[in-house]
């Protein structure tokens, strides 16, 4: 599903990713763990196509296709979804208006028929109910005045509606209390499917108790330093990231 090879990325002339290689198969949930400031968010932005990130070397392939030359909206239409660490507030744009615009823009790009409002409303209502998203939230401007937990639930709601092939969750657990974490994790687990892959970026092992990963990758110094199974997360929880940071100093 996702193949990243020897990826080097600079931001403002400073190299952040230094030869990152990662492979995630369809149906797989891959957790990326690592200390702060190691380029985890940079990785999520580069995959989704944010401007200002210069890829100096390497490639990112989605189902065999190099996506680095595509616009963010084109990548989204091909199934890339980023659940933001800090979802943006958009005053003046009703959440429902936004959901319709996003869903139909992707359908148009794929040559599918646009969804009509009643059909859309039904899908949104169904998804909203399981994620504890109130009707009031759907009427309000997107993310405007939402609490941290509400914003994260709204991200998962969007993911449920857009049905991506590759979902990247960037520190989705940050700022969530245990109840909100469970709601979010249930939402993610409900979307696990053989033709869908997840990249779950997190600093803590806690989230992985709720979203069980198939593989765990330690990221430090702009690279994947070590890969393993779920047991690697427990080891990190016990021993911390010190040894990976120490390598850098050496």
């Amino acid at each position, binding site marked *: 599903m996702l193949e990243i090879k020897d990826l080097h990325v600079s931001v403002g002339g400073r190299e952040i990713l230094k030869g990152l290689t990662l492979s995630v198969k369809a149906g797989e949930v891959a957790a990326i763990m690592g200390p702060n400031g190691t380029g985890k968010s940079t990785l999520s932005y580069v995959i989704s196509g*944010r401007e200002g990130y210069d890829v100096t070397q390497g490639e990112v392939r989605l189902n065999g296709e190099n996506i680095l030359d595509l616009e*963010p*909206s084109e990548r989204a239409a091909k199934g*890339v979804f980023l659940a*933001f660490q800090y979802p943006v507030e*958009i*005053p003046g744009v009703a959440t429902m208006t936004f959901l319709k615009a996003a869903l139909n823009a992707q359908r148009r790009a794929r040559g599918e028929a646009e969804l009509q409002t009643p059909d859309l409303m039904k899908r949104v209502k169904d998804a909203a109910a399981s994620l504890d998203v109130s009707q009031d939230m759907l009427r309000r401007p997107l993310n405007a005045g939402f609490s941290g937990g509400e914003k994260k639930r709204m991200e998962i709601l969007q993911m449920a509606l857009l049905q991506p092939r590759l979902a990247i969750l960037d520190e989705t657990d940050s700022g969530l209390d245990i109840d909100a974490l469970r709601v979010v994790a249930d939402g993610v687990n409900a979307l696990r499917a053989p033709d869908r892959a997840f990249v779950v970026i997190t600093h803590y092992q806690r989230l992985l108790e709720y979203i069980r990963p198939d593989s765990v990758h330690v990221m430090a110094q702009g690279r994947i330093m070590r890969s393993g199974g779920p047991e690697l997360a427990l080891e990190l929880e016990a021993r911390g990231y010190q040894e990976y940071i120490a390598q850098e100093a050496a």
Partner: protein
Amino acid sequence: MIKLAEAESTLSSFYEEMRDQGAPRLRAAAWAAFSEFGLPSRRVESWHYTDLKIALSRPAPLAAASHAALSLPRAHDSLRLVTLDGVFRPDLSDIARLPDGVAIRSLRDALAQGEPHVLTALASADIGAQDPVLALNAALMQDGVVVEIASGTRIGRAIELATLSSAEAAQSTYTRALVMLGAGVQVNLVETLGALSAAFAQDNSALVLRLAKNARVDLVTHLSGGVEHSIRVASLLAHLDAGATINSFALIEGEGLHRRQIFARLDGEMASARFNGATLGRGRLHADTTLVVDHAKPNGASRECFRHILDDQSVGAFQGKVIVRPGAQKTDGAMQSKALLLSEQATMNNKPELEIFADDVQCGHGATCGRLDEDQLFYLSARGLPRREAEALLIEGFANEAMEALEDEQLRAYLSDRVSVWLSRRISR
């Protein structure tokens, strides 16, 4: 200098033509006031961003009365009163459909008959007295409509005051509408200022609103049309008695120069005013909104929320002044003006002002000017919206913030549609 003398001598000939058309004393006083100021240049503070002395250096001929039959398209389901090329047109208006309690006549007739309460309502010197262009309007007013709504009248539909020009050749118009609401009357008003032709026009219009105790007006103003170098000055004078409310929104689009000026006086306790607006600037549009909200009595509230969206080489200006008179305690005021610049060549001038002479008040203002937010654009793009569509959604949201207080669904849909049309032209080029 020769040009300026030319402008003022042409205007003087207009005054000679109009001075005998009713209300001679009112016109004479207004002409004297105008003559003292002359056309305002940038040196006049309230006209700092719109130099009328240069723009109006060659006044176009005064519009001649036309009674040509015409079919006007309808944009919404309102009761329409039409003033066309400077003349009130009962034949084009929905007079027969007006409910009992609504009295209509032309301003020309009311002035010719010297109706005392009309003259009093028009001549009240408490608001806008310092403005030379409003004085010019009073000196030269050709026609317009007088609407009186008696207490207890219920009006199901909006009343539209349409002031339009249709001439094929250059012309000037000076029109004035007067709307007097009895105590407790509630009405939706739509003020449409536009052109049916692409001819060069100089239009100076005024709407005088007098709200008796507890009356309420929901007002939508739409300024559109215009060609390069055309000029439109539209003034709103609102006088609110105790407990009266005005809730207004204005959309400015089109080409040429548009200046909207508001003079409001909250002259009774618990009066409440909202003046919101949005400007859609493209090409060389010059759009100036200048307002003075004058709190004269205690416990009043005022809100202003303006959004300028400026593309190409368009220029926006917002000058907002809130005055709180001595004794107008517990006044609650908040003014906000935000501009979105969509091109390197677009310009915005923002000038909020507070003049507070009472000590127990709550008044604030904020003004910002910026570009589309890259974080928001990326967020929308990452959800599948191509760049131009993402921009359009953000611009729409930006304009919506000023429309949120509009209660009439139909009028809101009409305005949203105008914004969409403007945006679709941006996406397609």
